[in-house]
């Protein structure tokens, strides 16, 4: 396909307008809410409009935009159809979330900060997906991390701060991994354009891939890097949770997509690229996806906090996306099915997960309850919320007629095709696990729906609820999107996702089955029926016997097993050394003091007064600092038994430690220099 090149500054405006709006809104006083809301509304509307305006160009080729003299490499935007799909989802969900914020946030504090950073993050995420080279991508990725941090800790209570700091440190580690990867890449290729370059990477390809995967995997919430996600997403305000879960984690998926399907591809025909390496990386990514999918679903089943179920569900759904990508990678040029499936699922997940968070947010806004055990019977109180929630939940569960069905079918079919083509037993196992995870997805949504909307209304919550028009509008739009996509699954597939697969160079033979894919034929429907039956088989006995209330033991938590002890170990390794050193120092000083005191006792009567004052001062200073007194005593014994010398003559206090150090270093350097030189 010949792609035409357009030069346009619209991508730049789409990124910059929200950022500039955000900064200027910050200077308005707290009280002027109308200006603030209008600013956010129009900025997000502008971005949405700008992205839609780019649509016709996308169908024919690329849009370039280059801003030289900015940062080191210049700012470079390149929008192709894949970026456009992400950008459209981002702006759409953002637009709806901004509207939802108007009613949800009206009772919250610190709105100036919230709205400014909300709209700032929009610009940053759009920058991530528009970026045309890895340096621009990295810059916007980092900006996105830091501005979304403010959204995570909006509540500022203890829980939010803890979740926020975990998020921040994980994100910084991810950012540094990205920077390292980009540096290595630059060292190998000498440029940072997004072009296939597997041959050039040589033997550094493994470390580059690993570092990129860590960097983007943290954001995407892939196991075992997901630990921040179930903590950070629930504590944010609901519109922000919707954005974090619906949009922000997709930035990680976008990065993985750009790396694995563009960078780690052979450049051009007849290249000597290492297909075994590509296969292995894809196969491992698929298994990470499968594990993420299953573990996320299991963890979601065991939660009772509604938002936390949704957060774990996001992890699980990211597993689907990673599985699809993995299949697309290891199938090489034949992987169009897996790729379109996972791109489709990215779109679907953005819609229904943002919708679900908004709906749970509405429930929270009205009842101030997030725990399922204290909710129930909301179907009678809020029929519209119930209906839209049901539609979105059916979407995520993959029921035919709702949007999740199409993407899950594609991913599942890609697994089946991979198995029949390659005949690897592992893929067969993965396909089985896929079915189980899908069944578990249905289970936890049944549990969630049952817990919140069915059953008895608790006495405390038994009054009339009314909801603002804007919140209703948002929920209805989300539900409508789920339904429209679900009822006409081929529409988006042929309009957006197949062209997306075409620019990545998948072969025509693998693209062919996707045109007019029969979603509503008996074969995919039958597989879905199996999943639903399996879900019933799991749900019935499990809910009757209360298996869902089981709390997993701490040794199963990755955070407790790996991420907490590791830094502790490293830090304690350093600090224990310093502590011993410090205590030993204090000990030496104390000896000298004691010796001095002893000597001073023999001096004449005249000097008693100043001496005892000095002595007392020393003693009190010693005792006030004396947390480690007992340990000091032990150390004293320890040191005496090890290094015995006459302390009256030879203490560290009457030798100048600093100057000794200098002489010591000089000696060492002299030694090195002479031993090398001669």
């Amino acid at each position, binding site marked *: 396909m010949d792609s035409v090149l357009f030069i346009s500054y619209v991508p730049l405006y789409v990124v910059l307008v929200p950022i500039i709006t955000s900064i200027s809104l910050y200077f308005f006083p707290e009280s002027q809410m109308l200006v603030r809301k209008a600013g956010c509304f129009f900025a997000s509307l502008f971005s949405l409009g700008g992205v839609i305006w780019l649509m016709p160009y996308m169908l024919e080729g690329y849009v370039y935009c280059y801003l030289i003299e900015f940062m080191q490499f210049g700012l470079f935007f390149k929008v192709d159809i894949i970026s456009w799909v992400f950008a459209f989802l981002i702006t759409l969900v953002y637009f709806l979330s901004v509207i939802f914020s108007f009613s949800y946030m009206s009772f919250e504090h610190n709105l100036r900060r919230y709205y400014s950073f909300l709209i700032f993050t929009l610009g940053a995420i759009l920058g991530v997906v528009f970026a045309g080279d890895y340096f621009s991508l990295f810059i916007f990725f980092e900006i996105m991390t830091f501005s979304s941090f403010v959204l995570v800790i909006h509540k500022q*209570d203890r829980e939010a701060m803890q979740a926020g700091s975990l998020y921040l440190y994980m994100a910084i580690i991810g950012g540094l991994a990205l920077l390292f990867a980009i540096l290595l890449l630059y060292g190998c290729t000498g440029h940072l354009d997004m072009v296939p370059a597997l041959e050039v990477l040589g033997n550094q390809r493994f470390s580059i891939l690993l570092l990129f995967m860590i960097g983007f995997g943290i954001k995407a919430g892939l196991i075992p890097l997901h630990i921040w996600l179930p903590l950070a997403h629930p504590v944010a305000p609901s519109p922000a949770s919707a954005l974090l879960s619906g949009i922000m984690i997709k930035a990680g998926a976008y990065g993985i997509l750009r790396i694995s399907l563009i960078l780690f591809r052979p450049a051009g025909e007849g290249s000597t690229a290492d297909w075994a390496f590509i296969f292995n990386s894809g196969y491992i990514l698929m298994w990470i996806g499968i594990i993420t999918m299953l573990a996320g679903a299991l963890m979601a089943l065991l939660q009772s906090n509604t938002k936390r179920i949704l957060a774990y569900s996001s992890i699980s759904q990211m597993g689907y996306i990673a599985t699809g990508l993995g299949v697309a990678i290891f199938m090489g040029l034949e992987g169009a099915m897996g790729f379109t499936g996972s791109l489709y699922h990215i779109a679907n997940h953005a819609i229904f997960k943002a919708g679900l968070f908004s709906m749970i947010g509405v429930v929270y806004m009205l009842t101030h309850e997030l725990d399922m055990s204290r909710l129930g019977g909301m179907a009678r109180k809020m029929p519209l919320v119930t209906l839209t929630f049901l539609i979105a939940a059916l979407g995520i569960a993959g029921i035919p007629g709702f949007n999740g069905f199409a993407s899950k079918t594609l991913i599942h079919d890609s697994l089946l095709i991979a198995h029949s083509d390659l005949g690897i037993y592992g893929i067969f196992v993965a396909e089985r696990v896929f079915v189980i995870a899908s069944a578990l997805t249905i289970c936890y949504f049944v549990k969630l729906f049952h817990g919140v909307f069915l059953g008895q209304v608790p006495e405390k919550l038994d009054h009339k609820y009314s909801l603002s028009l804007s919140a209703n509008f948002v929920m209805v739009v989300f539900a409508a999107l789920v339904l429209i996509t679900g009822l006409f699954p081929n529409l988006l597939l042929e309009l957006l996702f197949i062209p997306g697969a075409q620019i990545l160079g998948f072969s025509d033979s693998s693209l062919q089955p996707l045109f007019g894919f029969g979603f509503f034929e008996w074969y995919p429907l039958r597989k879905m029926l199996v999943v639903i039956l399996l879900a019933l088989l799991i749900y019935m006995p499990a809910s009757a016997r209360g298996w869902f209330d089981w709390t997993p033991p701490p040794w199963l938590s990755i955070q407790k097993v790996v991420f907490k002890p590791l830094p502790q170990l490293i830090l304690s390794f350093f600090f224990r050394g310093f502590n011993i050193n410090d205590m030993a120092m204090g000990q030496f000083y104390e000896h000298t003091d004691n010796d001095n005191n002893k000597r001073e006792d023999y001096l004449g009567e005249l000097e008693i007064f100043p001496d005892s004052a000095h002595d007392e001062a020393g003693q009190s200073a010693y005792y006030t600092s004396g947390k480690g007194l007992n340990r000091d005593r032990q150390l004293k014994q320890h040191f005496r038994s090890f290094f015995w010398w006459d302390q009256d003559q030879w203490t560290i206090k009457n030798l100048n430690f600093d100057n000794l150090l200098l002489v010591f270093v000089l000696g060492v350097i002299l030694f090195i220099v002479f031993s090398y030189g001669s």
Partner: protein
Amino acid sequence: MGLTNHFPALILAILLGISFLSPILFRWVRKASAPALLLSLFLALVMAVYLLIQTTQVGEFSYYMGGWPPPWGIELKINLIRAYMLIVVLAVSLWIMVYALKDLEHELKTDVLGWYYTLYALVVASMAGMALTNDLFNLFVLMEICAISACAIISIKEDRACLEASFKYLILSAMGTGCFLLGVAMVYMVTGHMNYDLVNEYLPVAVEQYPNNMFAASALFIVAFGTKAALFPLHVWLPDAHASAPSPSSAMLSGLVIKIYAFGLFIVFYQIFPRSLLDSIPLNEIILWLSSMGIMFGSIFAMVQVDLKKMLAYSSIGQIGYVFLGIGLDDTIAMTGGFYHLLVHAIMKSMLFMCAGVIIYTTGIRQIKQLGGIGQVLPITMIAFTIGSASMIGIPGTGGLISKWYLALGALEIGRPIFVVIILASSLLNAIYYMPIIVNAFMQQEEFAYEVKAVPRQMLIPLIIGMIAIVFLGVFSRPVIVLLENGLQLFF
């Protein structure tokens, strides 16, 4: 035209002159003393910019003091790197002085202010001299002037901690200069010259004939400059000295004084020593590992500090490590990064010390623990602190990222990815101790618990300038990088 030829000497003359004049001015025309200092710093800066423009046009050129050519007279030399150092020194010290005018009134007794100006001008003059001089003995004299006046601007506060710290600094830096003098003597012994270029000319032969002399001299130079610039195991004087000094002095010492010695080591390694000496003995290797250890341990020590200024001081130990890393990596790209970091760190660390100074001025608080919620009452100060910290961590949009980028690229180019790991790991460590302060300052639920004075505008304006400078250096880094790349080509 006649006057412009004498600009290199005039810069030093103006600064030394104002240092002698300011106590007199302070005694008789008190109001004029501070503006006179600012004016002379500004004049010197203008001349330095003129020199930079001149050297971009005509290349490297020399100035002979009193018209005496090198073997007898003192030679001042100007090339791109030296002009760059000169401008960094003069611009940053002018900027700090603007801030200092208000802060010093609070921290010092009124009658010593005139003397403070003297010492300040002396420190700046000696640093400018070190950037310009082309003579080893001259360098030694300027190092002594710098050390003693730096000691005095620490101890001028006259409390116990300052006196103790400055005494420690005095002793250690005297040891350092002693090492330097011994090294110079050894070089003089084998070459018979003091001028950099002449020494460089005779050294290749001398190294063949008297290798031991040069080995000892190189070790002595490393220890001398290492002590002065707080290279890792020799940093012991720095935390006390920088933390207890008045805030403008801390900004000056952490921002500039330790850098100029790193520059001195660079000159010794790449202008004086012949290439064969660097290749035959692992001098760069020593610098590399000491600086990496400094980068890591400086950050780790900083993490456990409770005093804000002490934390900043320990952080300086880590940050000077980057500059030394650039020197030790022996690669144009890495060195560009190191020199860029020299500028960026001069600005950001000075700014952070200024922020600490504002906090102490308005609230009297030094403990990190007590800073919760301070962002609500001192917003501009804490935003400046945030931008400075962001630059320390290397967040995109700040100068810190650019210097780390170049250092890391240089490390990769010579095939030592381990140093990239160290650079990135230290970024993480920086984040670990800077982030909690910022997060607590802005996001804490409780109100700030202490009384707050109003911040004078004179203190805020330098902070705002600093913020703009850091972001500018992060976004439009190209001109400075090109200048450094051109300048460093002279040395390779």
